[in-house]
């Protein structure tokens, strides 16, 4: 069994751990001799004033109180927390990558070539006709894709009539929220007994008012929607579009393409599938792909190549823009580097090992894993134990726990995605961490975690009496 004692810095003088910068020094500075007249300037600012050596120590200590993929396994289901290759940071850090977005295209040919090549790579990988790289995250990709679907229906004079988006109950929260942001009513679809789309319920729900069905495949239980061709037919026959949430594309790299399955619009989650770092919550990127006939609705601009010159083009009936510029460029550059490092063989090997790892891990843990056969992830049940408590107890074993309590179709869900980057030995340590908790008694679970920088955190107080800044701490 593996143990992990997380670093923890605290000072007896402060009531927390590493003191806030503001607790080390808070200096009020009032500008004098400014070029601007007084009535255009503020009275002053009150901020920490500390030296470079102190600053470096502060952030180094904070990093030691943070768990990342490089620390150990991070099987957060649906998030694809795979190893982030280091060479991509060197590529992103070079000065030639730092150019202004308003350069004339002639002055940014290198950057535009990278965009164009990545549009092409992703079109091939998704089996799509065209790709935009503009959406800055998966959720932004969803909003973009749904706006494309809306533009398509409006183009066909069916905009007013098609006011519903169908979303399976097990879908990610962003699917519901993105469709609602685009102005749609949501129709939730129940799953069948196998955990997949219930075809009868689908047939019942689709109709003249259906704008699209949003689907994740493999779904959030890790199951391939085997009836995908029939699903596509049902939705298309009713005049709706089929939207692919690409969060789980890692499972299918090189094995199946959304375009071939009948999807009309899809997003990629490059911070999942293509190994760009999650950065403590972002930035990611959520490019979308569309099938033939929908290219004209894509956001503006698209990068095209004309001979050997890269140009920016506004699609004929573009939905406009979803980001102030061209999306999260540095993330896209890292995506390009990762895909061209792997190539066909590496991409196919990725899905093979991702699925192999999930199946091996499921085999080694002593918890019930309903449904199957699953691919890159599975959803185990914590049984009698609260899944959130189960997760806390795993923390002391040097692993990050799975995603908890979602999808709700499994009681006390532990949604587990080890990714292709874990070795057999690491998976065995991870399985041991699950098994130790499944055998632990209630008291031990309730007392966990013990070896993390913070002990169990009181969420209720945080929400009831919000303290969101150092200013509010002293209120």
């Amino acid at each position: 069994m593996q143990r992990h004692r997380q670093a923890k810095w605290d000072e007896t003088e402060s009531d927390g751990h590493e003191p806030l910068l503001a607790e080390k020094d808070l200096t009020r500075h009032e500008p004098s001799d400014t070029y601007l007249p007084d009535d255009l300037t503020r009275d002053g600012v009150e901020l920490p004033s500390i030296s470079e050596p102190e600053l470096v120590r502060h952030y180094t200590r904070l990093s030691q109180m943070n768990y990342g993929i490089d620390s150990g396994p991070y099987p957060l289901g649906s998030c694809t927390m795979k190893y982030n290759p280091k060479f991509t940071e060197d590529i992103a850090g070079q000065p030639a990558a730092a150019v202004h977005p308003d350069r004339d295209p002639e002055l940014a040919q290198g950057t535009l070539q990278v965009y164009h090549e990545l549009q092409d790579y992703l079109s091939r990988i998704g089996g799509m006709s065209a790709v935009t790289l503009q959406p800055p995250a998966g959720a932004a990709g969803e909003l973009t894709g749904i706006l494309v679907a809306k533009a398509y229906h409006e183009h066909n004079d069916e905009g007013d009539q098609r006011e519903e988006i169908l979303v399976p109950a097990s879908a990610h929260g962003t699917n519901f929220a993105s469709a609602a942001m685009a102005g749609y009513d949501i129709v939730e679809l129940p799953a069948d007994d196998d955990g997949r789309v219930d075809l009868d319920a689908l047939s019942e729900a689709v109709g003249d008012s259906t704008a699209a069905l949003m689907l994740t495949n493999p779904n959030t239980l890790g199951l391939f929607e085997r009836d995908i061709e029939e699903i596509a037919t049902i939705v298309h026959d009713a005049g709706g579009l089929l939207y692919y949430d690409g969060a789980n594309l890692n499972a299918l790299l090189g094995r199946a393409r959304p375009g071939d399955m009948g999807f009309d619009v899809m997003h990629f989650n490059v911070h999942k599938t293509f190994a760009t770092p999650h950065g403590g919550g972002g930035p990611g990127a959520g490019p979308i792909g569309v099938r033939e006939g929908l290219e004209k609705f894509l956001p503006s601009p698209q990068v095209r190549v004309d001979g050997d010159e890269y140009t920016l083009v506004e699609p004929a009936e573009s939905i406009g823009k979803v980001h102030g510029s061209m999306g999260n460029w540095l993330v896209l550059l890292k995506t390009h580097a990762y895909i061209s490092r792997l190539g066909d063989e590496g991409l196919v090997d990725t899905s093979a090992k991702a699925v192999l790892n999930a199946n091996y891990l499921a085999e080694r843990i002593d918890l019930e894993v309903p449904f199957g056969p699953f691919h890159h992830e599975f959803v185990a049940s914590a049984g009698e134990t609260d899944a959130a408590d189960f997760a806390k107890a795993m923390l002391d074993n040097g692993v990050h726990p799975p995603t908890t309590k979602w999808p709700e179709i499994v009681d006390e869900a532990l949604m587990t995605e080890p990714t292709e980057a874990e070795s057999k030995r690491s998976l065995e340590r991870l399985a041991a961490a699950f098994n130790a908790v499944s055998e632990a008694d209630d008291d031990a679970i309730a007392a966990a975690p013990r070896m993390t920088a913070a002990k169990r955190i009181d969420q209720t107080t945080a929400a009831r009496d919000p303290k969101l800044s150092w200013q509010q701490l002293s209120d």
Partner: protein
Amino acid sequence: MNQTHPTRETDLSFDESDAAQAESGSPFTPHDAEDVTEMLAAIGADDVEELFDVPEPVRYDGSFGIEGRSERAVRRRLDRTLDANADVVEFLGRGHYSHYVPSVVDSLSLRSEFITSYTQYQPEVSQGFLQVLFEFQSLVTELTGMDVANCSMYDAATALGEAATLADRVRAADGSTILVPDYLRAERRAVLENYADGPGLEIREFPTANGMVDPDALESALGEDVLLVYVENPTTDGVIEEHLDEIGSILEDRETLFCLGSDLLALSLLQNPADVGADVVVGNAGVLGLPNVYGMGIGLFACREEFLRQVPGRLVGASEDADGDRTYTLTLQTREQHIRRERATSNICSNQAWVALRTAIHAAYLGPEGLTALADRCTRLPARLAAELDAIPGVSAPANDAYHFREFTAEIDGDAEAVVSELADRGFAVHRRGDDAIQVCVTETNEEHAAELLETVREVMA
């Protein structure tokens, strides 16, 4: 020659292909053949292919036609590709700025515990990043004077979009109009239109004068239907707004939110949004922490306390752990998509947290004095450059009779397109503004080239 080691025919060719030394599978999967065999045996499968439950008609054979390369080859290839970006000195701004990013920002933000972590769903092992985000929120709170700041939106444009939908949720005007100034960048407006589309908000423009708000014109554009008025300080034309107090008074007793667009550096010197009655502050926080990376940034979003439960995006709050120590955690999550689904305040999930880390480090590096001094410099540099440009025959600068921040527009006798393109040929990138104006942005990162720029403009205008 006495050759004891005669050259043998084999193994001696130079491999110049890009694929040289590329592995056969993924270099990032640790399994050897024995591991795979044992794992398959444990699962009870003969072959990995068996594990894919994909019907035959939709299977794909994996031949994308993308060639794998060694790490060195990928770097070499992308280095060469990016080298095709012209070697010009940028005097470009309009919402995207270049400030010197000190080395500590890269060095600390690339610490792998930070960059390879994700959203802090398990706060007990994520105290480090949570504290970073808490400190970032505090920084934004101080600089905007607002009560609440979230820990990031995607960029300035999407932050404005979110402000518009917030106004729709918290205000009960007789209509659904979002009033924006005529100087709003087309790109920001286009993003705003898409956020406004779902809730059915209408975007309307009000005219400005001399690059800033004309309070009378604003007042006559206002109606009972207006949910939000957006104003920038500085504007994307570089003008420092002189009527913020009046705008605040005009909007004070209305069902209309006052949304101010700015950036963290400008805010450290210019009027405090809270003092002029702003309700929401949006903008680009990435002016600190990131150089110009093709428009990638971080949206800042701060507002007054009364809108707390309608704020989009993640919020980090302080709490206590079982030992009674102060700790940090994501909080008020019932606003968010993973709990509230279609009734969430926004669809945002992944955000720009790592950029927030960089911004926080950069701001702490500068400190209050450094921030203010740099901001002050950003008011002097454009004044100096404009005065010198104005001395060149055929150039009139600045076009607006105002104070400026980092940048200004200049009127040109002659064809602006030709002038901009001639400048580019000679190694300088500036903005073209219509047929007879250009826009020039100067900060500490390009001021050393200002004299050459002036010389070149003189030649081009001659």
